[in-house]
């Protein structure tokens, strides 16, 4: 038997899988380059959300799980550190996502400039018009 929280979490995951599918559809089957870039950003964001879900931690005994920041460090109290260790969410996926967001941003920016350059040469941003090479 599942709890209500787990059901909601499953809805979250399923929505992300659907978003992933939609974004992949956009990247592969939409001929417009700008639309492809938009779909690419959505794809990256959805992948990041997966990572954060993997790193989430359900509430322990009614106490909200907390961000991985040890705010009581001034007290130098090992007990508080122990409580922190037992309630904070996983910081590693967050660090990975931080890296992935910046990398996605970099690639997207570069693709935007490429698209602009393609417009200057072909006067179109449609992949069906940009077809000088044989493939």
């Amino acid at each position: 038997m599942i709890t209500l929280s787990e059901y909601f979490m499953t809805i979250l995951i399923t929505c992300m899988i659907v978003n992933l599918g939609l974004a992949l559809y956009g990247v592969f089957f939409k001929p417009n380059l700008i639309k492809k870039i938009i779909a690419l950003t959505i794809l990256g964001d959805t992948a990041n959300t997966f990572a954060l879900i993997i790193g989430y931690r359900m509430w322990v005994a009614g106490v909200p799980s907390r961000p991985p920041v040890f705010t009581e460090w001034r007290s130098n109290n090992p007990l508080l550190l122990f409580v922190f260790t037992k309630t904070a969410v996983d910081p590693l996926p967050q660090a990975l996502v931080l890296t992935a967001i910046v990398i996605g941003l970099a690639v997207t920016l570069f693709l935007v400039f490429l698209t602009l350059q393609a417009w200057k040469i072909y006067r179109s941003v449609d992949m069906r018009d940009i077809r000088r090479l044989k493939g």
Partner: protein
Amino acid sequence: MSYGEAFLLGITALAAIFSTIATYMAIMERDLLKAVIFSAIQSTIYAFIYYMLMAPDIDLVYIPVAVGLYPAVIIALIKKTTREEKP
């Protein structure tokens, strides 16, 4: 199992459903400017989801990048190129 957790995760799941709708509209919309705005809606909702998943660091990166930067560069790009997607 607590009332608070189920309630907040319920809000998150609702947000996820709305993000799916926004994504669908963004991918299917022919007017590119509207697609960008839909993708901004989706980004805002994702920022909220990240907040609920206890990732303030990610949010601080994600909001400038996805809410501020992507729409800016793509709107600039649309302004310089074309707004309509050919059928």
